[in-house]
C-alpha cells in the first residue's frame, strides 16, 4: 500500500438542481475554493459548481504545485502572501493532508541585470510581508545541491533570491480538500456537465444553460480556466486574455532527498522534487496562443538540456511523463477578478501560470465579494477596469513560469 494515496477525503456528489443563489462555472481550484468559502465562511450554501469534466482536471490538476509570493509590486506581493499564509493553515483548517512543504524557493540570476532584479525583488518582498533575501552564488551552491554554478559557461550564476516562504503542495489534494469542505457544507458539485450558454435578462446574467438543462442563478461566477474568454463572451464581456499552452514533465520517483525548489527565468525552467520523490519540472508558456493540450518534443528537448546544464546529476533521471495545460494570460501577467460590465456575472481569470498558488486567497476574496457585494481591498487592483483606466500592474519579471 503506498502512503501517498488519498485516505480521508469523501466526495458527496449531488444532482444538479434548477436554481441556486450562486452558480460557479468551473470545478477547478478557484471555483471550488470560492464555493468552499461561500458555504463555510459566509453560510451561503445554495451554491452549485458545474464542472464539464472532473473536478481539478484542468490546470488545477496539471500545474507544478509551487506556492510563492515573490512578486515585484506591492499589490501582488500582498495578495499572494495572503494566499501563502492561507496555505500554511489549510491542513489544520480542513483536517486534510495536502502535502504542504515549505522549503524555500531559489530564483536564479545569470546576468548583472538579473542580479539587480533579484535584489529589487528582495526589497519589495520584505517591504510587503514576504520573506525574500538576495543570495550570492556560494550560498546557492549550498541551497541547491548538485548545481553547476558555471552552467556550461553559458549561463553562469550571478546570484539569486531565496524566497523563504516558497512551498509546494499536492495539487489534487488542495482541490479535493476544498471540494469536500464545500460539499459537506451543502454545496452541489456536479461533474460531466457542460455550460453551453448563459441566460440573460437584458444585460444581466440570471442563469446558465447546460447540456442537462437550465439553471437559474442569482450570481454566476466564471472560474473557468483555459476557455475563460468563451464563457465571458456568452455574457457579452470581452476579456483581454490570450490562451497559451504550458508544458511540464515529471520523472520516475526517487528517494526524497533533494529539498530545493529552483527556478531560472533565463533558462526558462523550474524544478523541484515532490513528496513522492518525482522530479517535477516545467517551462515558460509556449509562444503561440492555442487551446491544444498536446505535448511536444521541442519543449522537452530544450528543457532537458537546460536542466542538465545546471544540474548534471539529473541527466540520469528518467522522464516518466509530459503533459500540457492551457493558461489564460492577461496583458500584465496579473489576474482579473471581480465584477464585470454584465450585472450578475463575476469573473476570476487571468490565472496564467500562477493560478495554483492563488487558490486559497482567490477563493476567499471572491466569496467575500459575493457575500458583501463589495470588492475586497486585497483584489481591488485586479479589477478588469484597470486596463481602461491605465492602471495595469506590469510585472512581467515576476510572473516567472509557475
Amino acid at each position, binding site marked *: 500500500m503506498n502512503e501517498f494515496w*488519498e485516505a480521508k477525503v469523501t466526495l458527496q456528489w449531488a444532482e444538479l438542481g434548477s436554481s441556486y443563489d450562486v452558480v460557479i462555472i468551473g470545478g477547478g481550484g478557484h471555483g471550488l475554493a470560492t464555493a468552499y468559502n461561500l458555504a463555510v465562511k459566509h453560510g451561503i450554501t445554495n451554491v452549485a459548481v458545474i464542472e464539464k469534466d472532473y473536478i481539478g482536471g484542468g490546470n488545477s490538476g496539471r500545474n507544478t504545485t509551487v506556492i510563492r509570493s515573490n512578486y515585484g509590486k506591492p499589490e501582488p506581493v500582498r495578495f499572494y502572501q495572503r494566499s501563502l499564509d492561507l496555505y500554511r493553515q489549510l491542513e489544520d483548517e480542513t483536517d486534510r493532508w495536502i502535502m504542504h512543504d515549505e522549503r524555500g524557493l531559489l530564483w536564479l540570476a545569470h546576468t548583472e541585470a538579473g542580479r539587480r532584479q533579484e535584489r*529589487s525583488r528582495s*526589497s519589495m518582498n520584505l517591504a510587503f510581508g514576504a520573506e525574500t533575501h538576495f543570495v550570492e552564488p556560494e550560498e546557492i551552491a549550498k541551497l541547491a545541491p548538485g548545481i553547476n554554478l558555471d552552467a556550461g559557461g553559458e549561463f553562469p550564476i550571478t546570484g539569486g533570491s531565496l524566497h523563504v516562504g516558497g512551498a509546494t503542495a499536492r495539487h489534487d489534494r488542495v482541490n479535493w480538500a476544498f471540494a469536500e469542505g464545500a460539499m459537506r457544507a451543502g454545496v452541489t458539485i456536479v461533474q460531466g456537465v457542460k455550460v453551453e450558454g448563459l441566460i440573460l435578462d437584458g444585460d444581466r446574467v440570471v442563469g446558465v444553460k447546460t447540456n442537462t438543462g437550465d439553471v437559474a442563478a442569482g450570481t454566476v461566477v466564471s472560474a473557468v480556466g483555459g476557455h475563460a474568454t468563451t464563457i465571458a463572451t456568452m455574457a457579452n464581456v470581452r476579456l483581454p486574455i490570450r490562451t497559451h499552452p504550458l508544458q511540464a514533465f515529471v520523472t520516475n520517483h526517487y528517494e526524497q*532527498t533533494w529539498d530545493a525548489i529552483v527556478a531560472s527565468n533565463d533558462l526558462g525552467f523550474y524544478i523541484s522534487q515532490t513528496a513522492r520523490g518525482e522530479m517535477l519540472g516545467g517551462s515558460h508558456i509556449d509562444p503561440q496562443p492555442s487551446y491544444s493540450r498536446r505535448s*511536444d518534443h521541442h519543449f522537452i528537448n530544450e528543457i532537458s538540456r537546460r536542466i542538465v*546544464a545546471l544540474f548534471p546529476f539529473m541527466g540520469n533521471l*528518467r522522464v516518466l511523463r509530459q503533459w500540457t495545460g492551457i493558461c489564460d494570460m492577461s496583458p*500584465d501577467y496579473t489576474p482579473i477578478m471581480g465584477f464585470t460590465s454584465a450585472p450578475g456575472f463575476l469573473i476570476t481569470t487571468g490565472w496564467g501560470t500562477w493560478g495554483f498558488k492563488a487558490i486559497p486567497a482567490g477563493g476567499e476574496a471572491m466569496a467575500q465579494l459575493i457575500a458583501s457585494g463589495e470588492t475586497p481591498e486585497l483584489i481591488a487592483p485586479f479589477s478588469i477596469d484597470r486596463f481602461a483606466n*491605465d492602471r495595469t500592474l506590469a510585472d512581467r519579471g515576476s510572473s516567472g513560469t509557475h
Partner: protein
Amino acid sequence: MSFEYEGQTIPTSADESVLLSLLRAGIHPGSGGPLCFEGDCPNCLCTIDDVSYVRSCQTPAEVAVEVSPHGRDAPPLPPLDAGAPAIAVDYRVADVVVIGGGESGLQACAAAEANGRSVECFDASTGHDVVAIYPGPLVLVRTHGGMIEVECDEIVVATGAAEIHPVVPGSDLEGLWMPRAARKAVDAGLDLGQLVSVGNVPDALGATAAPGELVRFVGDHTVSAVITATADGEVETPCDNVVVGLGLHPRTGLARMGNGMNVRVVGDALLDADIPTCPPEGIACPCSNVTFEQLDNLHDRGFTHMELLKRGSLAGTGTCQGSVCTPYLRSFLQDRGQALQAPFTARPVARQLTLSEMAAGSHLPKLARTALDDVHRSLGARMDRMGGWWRPWTYGDTEAEYTAVRERVSLGDVSTLGKMIVTGPDAEATLQRIFPTNVSTIKPGRSRYVLMLDERGYVLDDGMIAREHDDTFFLTFTSGGASMSEMWIRDWSASWGHDIRILNQTLSLGAINITGPKAAEVLARATDDELPPFLGHSTLTIAGVECKVFRLSFTGELSFELHHPAADSVKLWTALMELGADHDIRPHGIEALFRLRLEKGHIIIGQDTDYDASPRRLQHEWAVNMNTGDFIGRTATERTNRIPLDKKLVGIETDGDTLVDGAVMWSGTEFAGTVSSSMWSPTLGKGVALAWLETVTGAFPETVRIDGVEARVVPPHFYDPEGSRARA
C-alpha cells in the same frame, strides 16, 4: 563477457538481455512478480550504470557494466557529483514509420515500400524503443547507442498486444511467468522445474494445467503453489514456476499519443481488449503499490470517476504507465456498476528515457558575439549576457573606465544596437506613423531620438532615426529590441499597404562609440573628412574603414558612433586605440556606461521601464509630438493623458548615501515607489538615482525615505543638464 551484480560477476552472452543473464544465474532482479520479457511491466527494473528504472528485459547484457536490484521502493537519486553523459542524435526523414517488427509491422513495411515510399521500421526487440509520437509527426526512438528522431508523413502502429498480468494475492512472488516469457525462457534453456499453467496457455510449453480460475499464489518469496477455484472449491497445485494466461490488452498507448495525426493501427494492436476478472483482493497497480482494498475505499468515498480514482490512488502513474493496471481499473469500475471506461489519456513518453537522452540534439541558447568579442576577452573583460549578446560588463576597473569618458576619451562596443535601413516611396509615411515625432522635419544628414509606442501608448523601444536621403532612413534600436522592432515596422507597413524596402543590418554592421572630451581630437587624426555636427551624420573614411558616423550622446560627453562593416571592427578599434594612446584612451564596459547615462538621466528600456511606461510617466513627453498626424499609440495617449498621473520616473538625490537598485521608497508610512537605477556620482559628489515615484494621497511627494535615508525628488538630469558637453 560479464557484468557486476551486487558484488557477483554475472557471465553473459552477446545476444541476451540483462534479465536473462540474471535468471541464468538464479537471480530475479526485481522484487518478484510475473515476468513478461516485453517491457510491459515493472517487475524486472534495475539500476544499470547509474540509471534506475531500466527494464532489464529490454537491455542487452553487453551494454551493462554495473547492475543492481531495484525493488518497489524508490531508488536513490544519482550521486550529486555525477556528470551528464552526452547522447548523440540521428535525424532522419521517412515517408512512413512502422512501429513494431512483428508480422503485421513487416507487412506494413512491405506494402509501403511496394508503393515506392521510404520506410523506417523500429522494433523494441532489436533495441529500438519508440518512446513517443509528437506533433510533426515526429517519432522519437531510444537506442542503446543514442537517439533517433524521424520526421515522417505517416505512422503505422504495429505494437501488438500485451499479455494481461495477474494481480491476485501472491502476484509479487518470484517464479511467475507470462506465456511468451515462459516460452523464451524455455527456449533459452532455463529449467522451470515443475511448471504449472493457469488460464489460457499454449500447450507447447508442456506445463501442467491447474484447473479453474486463478485465485492466488502462495509461497515464501518464491511461488510454491497456485490456488485456483473450480466448481468443487479451491484447488492447490504445487509448482516451481507458474505460467499465467489471462488474455490480451492491445498496446495502444502510442496510437493514442498520435491521435489526430496520420497514424494507422494494424495487427494485434487493433484487438478489442480482454477485460480480466477483477479479483477481490491483490495489488492492482504494482508500480504504485495500490491494492484493490484502496480502490474500493476510494470508490466508496466518491472517487468514482476513473481519473479521480487514478489520482486518488496513484494507480497508473508509475513506470509501466498503466500497462498492468489499466485493464483492472476498467474491470474494477465495471464491476462496481459503471459503464466501461476508456483507457487514460496517453501522454509522452511511452517508455522512460533519461533527461540526457531527452536533451539529445538540443543546445543551450547561444548568445551572439560581436566582431570585437575576442578583443574584449583579451583585454580581460568580464562578459555578461545582455539583450541576446555577450557584452563586456567591465574591463576590471569601472571607476577608471568612467573617468576616461568624463575626462579624456574612451571606446565602447555598440555593435549590438539594432540597425535598419528603411527606404522606398512610402518610407517617410511609414515612419511618420511608427514614431510619435514629425519625421518630415528631419532633414537629410540629421537624426533624432525617438520612442516607439505600442497601441496602448506604452514605450516599446527607443532609438535614433536618421535621414540619409529623401526616401532613405537609417534607424537604430536597443540591443534587445532589434528583432521585435523590425517585425513591428514590417507588420505595420504591410497592413498600411506601404511601398517600402527594409534591411535589418544589425548583424552585418559593427558599431564603435568614441566618447569623451577628446573624442573629436582623436577621431580627427583618423580621417581627413569633416566630422558631423551634433545630431548630424555622414559617411566618412575613418582609419581606412568606411563608416556611417553619427554624432549623438548617451554618455553625456562628446560622442561619435561609427557604424562600419563587421569585418572591419577589429581594424577600426585597434587604430583608434593607437591614435588615442597619448590621451590614455581605454574602453568602457556596460557598467560604466550605465553610470554615465544615469547621471544624464537617459533611460534604458527594460531596466527603467516596464510594460506600462507611457511617455508621460517617463517624463518624455518632449519626445512625443501631438501636433503631427496619426501615429501608433496616439489615441491611447490622448485618452490616458486625461487620467490623473499616478506615477512618474523622477530623479532622486541623497547627500551621502548610495541607494540600492529596487529599494522601496516611503513617504511617511505610505509606499511612494521604487528606485530604478542608482549610483554614487563621483563627479557630482552625491548619490543619484532614477526612481518610479507614485502619488501619495493624490500628490507626488517632494522627499522620500529609502532604507532610512532621506532623499530629495529632483528632475532626472543630474549631469550637464543643458547638454553643453555633448554639443561641444
